[in-house]
């Protein structure tokens, strides 16, 4: 594993057996994270982004089956495949909260109402860095102050119901950062908050990142937040990454029709044009019994009949560090992929035809 990398996800698949068939919300996700980098994972609800980040910590629901490789570059022990570990075992638990920690979408329900905030924050410290309660308390209060919780000594002994939503999210960030993790996974951390509080929390996360060499995996469907926070962006659709590249490139020059659609459906302040806000027609199909086809086929304006519904495009590098999975994009790499796929389909068609003939004979 490359030393500059901290996290590498290889061909991640998540399957959920259901009475009606197998649901495959994540269908082969590949991406990497460098040290200290903020990587965005963008997509609509149900595209598999939350499952992907839960898979990193091994905290998916019991009925989820997870395949692939998630390599974490441990600072002392070297590269480790997190998926190979027992999800209830000691090894992965020593990584959760210590090396990789996570903050959740709704801070109001993410804390247990029965214990004080202090108890729940210092629990993380007690699990990973100290056995001394007083020391854990001191570390927690210091971190609470750092994330801007005023009157931290008093707040430490309060219960979640005595906190506001924004303060609870700060408390959750405290809990995630108290052990100084190498990776912070933020699963839509600002979705449930007021816009003004949102900005504060994002600023806070950036600040905390500056102090350490922490990588952030930022899951969101809010492109404004992505532009503000991320170095790199992975656009996810129907359990696959359809476009990946530096945030600036993706914003300036989106290639994939889906990314394009997303960019156009953001309302821009100051635009004078009086027109309806663009929206992508249709909804994300259910990830069950999918044929070999591009996942976006049904909703795509640029679809190529006979190709996009017959073959699934893979991610190809269209420019340094910029990958797209689309047959219809107008660039060299995509055209090459298209030609290859067409040739393959043709060969298959001939094979099928000759088989038919043989059967007739």
């Amino acid at each position, binding site marked *: 594993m490359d030393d500059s990398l901290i996290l590498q996800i290889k061909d991640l698949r998540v399957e959920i057996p259901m009475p009606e068939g197998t649901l495959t919300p994540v269908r082969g996700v590949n991406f990497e994270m460098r040290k200290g980098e903020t990587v965005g994972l963008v997509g609509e609800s149900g595209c598999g982004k939350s499952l992907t980040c839960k898979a990193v910590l091994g905290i998916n629901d019991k009925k989820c089956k997870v395949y692939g490789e998630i390599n974490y570059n441990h600072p002392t022990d070297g590269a480790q495949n997190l998926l190979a570990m027992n999800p209830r075992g000691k090894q992965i638990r020593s990584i959760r909260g210590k090396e990789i*920690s996570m903050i959740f979408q709704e801070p109001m329900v993410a804390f247990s109402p029965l*214990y004080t905030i202090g108890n729940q924050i210092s629990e993380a410290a007690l699990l990973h860095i100290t056995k001394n309660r007083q020391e854990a308390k001191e570390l927690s209060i210091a971190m609470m102050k750092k994330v801007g919780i005023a009157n931290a000594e008093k707040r430490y002994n309060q219960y979640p119901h005595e906190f506001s939503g924004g303060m609870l999210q700060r408390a959750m960030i405290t809990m995630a950062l108290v052990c100084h993790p190498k990776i912070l996974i933020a699963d839509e951390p600002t979705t449930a908050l007021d816009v003004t509080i949102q900005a504060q929390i994002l600023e806070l996360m950036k600040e905390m990142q500056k102090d350490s060499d922490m990588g952030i995996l930022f899951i969101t469907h809010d492109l404004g937040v992505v532009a503000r926070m991320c170095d790199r962006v992975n656009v996810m659709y129907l359990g696959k990454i359809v476009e990946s590249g530096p945030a600036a490139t993706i914003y300036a020059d989106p290639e994939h029709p889906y990314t394009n659609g997303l960019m156009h459906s953001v309302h821009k302040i100051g635009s004078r044009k009086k027109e309806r806000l663009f929206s992508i027609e249709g909804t994300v199909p259910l990830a069950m019994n999918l044929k070999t086809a591009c996942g976006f086929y049904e909703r795509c304006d640029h679809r190529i009949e006979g190709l996009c519904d017959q073959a699934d495009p893979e991610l190809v590098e269209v420019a340094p560090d910029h990958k797209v999975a689309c047959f219809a994009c107008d660039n060299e790499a995509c055209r090459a992929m298209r030609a290859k796929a067409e040739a393959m389909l043709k060969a298959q068609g001939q094979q099928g035809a000759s088989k038919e003939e043989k059967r007739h004979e």
Partner: protein
Amino acid sequence: MENKSLSPKKSIFSSVADFFRQDLIRYIINRILLFFPTILLISIIIFFVIQLPPGDYVSTAIAKLQQEGEEVSAETAQEMRESYGLDQPVIVQYGLWVKDIIWTGSNTTYYRLYNSHHNWKYSFSYQTNVWNVIGKYLPMTVTITLFTMLLQYLIAIPVAVYSATHQYSVGDYAISILTFTGSAIPGFIFAILCMYLSFLWTGNANVGMFTQDMLLNGINWGNLGEFMKRMTIPFIVFGFAGTCGTIRSVRAQMLDEISQQYTLTARAKGVSERKIIWKYCFRAAINPTVTGLGTSLSHLFSGSTVTAMVLNLSILGPVLFHALQYQDMYLAGAIVMVQAILVEVGVLLADIGIAFLDPRIRYSGGSR
């Protein structure tokens, strides 16, 4: 962090101090103060119910005497009324009732009647004061009730947690089938079944609580074994339905809590599964069960009457039934009063328990 020198031992003390934060103490005091007016109200209601049957005791008694061929003069009737205090206003009668029957219990109407008119060949259900009757049955009733409850929770809680953490496993299905069956079977049928099986296997139906020896000498080390043997069926029968119900409710609550977001937070922090279950989920899941403590106490008291009659147990349920049957309203009222007080104590303890378990209760209780 002013106290950097604090040792971890001292911090345990400080966390105990946190535990008894102001709002918790205030809540408990509030709750205890509420206890007394409730009892007063219950006693008034019970007194009212006692007055409900048509006529008063004297007319019932006279009617019975006349049935048996006795002549009762108007003076005797008046004398009896006066001795009961029935000529007094209702509020005074209530006072007399509280004073004589509930407070001292020594001067019950029957007692007085029996002592001052020995020549009356007139049989009441229990010819002694109310407390003597209750005192005879109450210890055994309370023992059985508390022991059954203890047994019920000791068995139900681990089973329910197992069932919830192994949802849809073979064990869970087996437990579900058993608990549904247990909740559905009426206690007295189960009692008869147990007696039958006991007779089939041991040749002894093990009915009744006491042997002659126990009645004469009380329970001692010598006959404790026999006593426990005789108690087995009552415990099984009384405890079974409650255990099944508790398993169902705790299991459902546990499943609810396990799917809460905070378990995911705890897991992401690196907390072990066992600690997630017991520290977070269980403490939240047990909440309704603790709330129901008082109610299940009353259920054990009054709901088990038929079962107790089938098993021929000398506890208060059948006595109450008997008292009601013979319109022995003073005895019935006293028994109901005792039960109400015990249930109130149960509810009080449950409420205090809940306040310990859930800080949100303390909070709203304190601000009331």
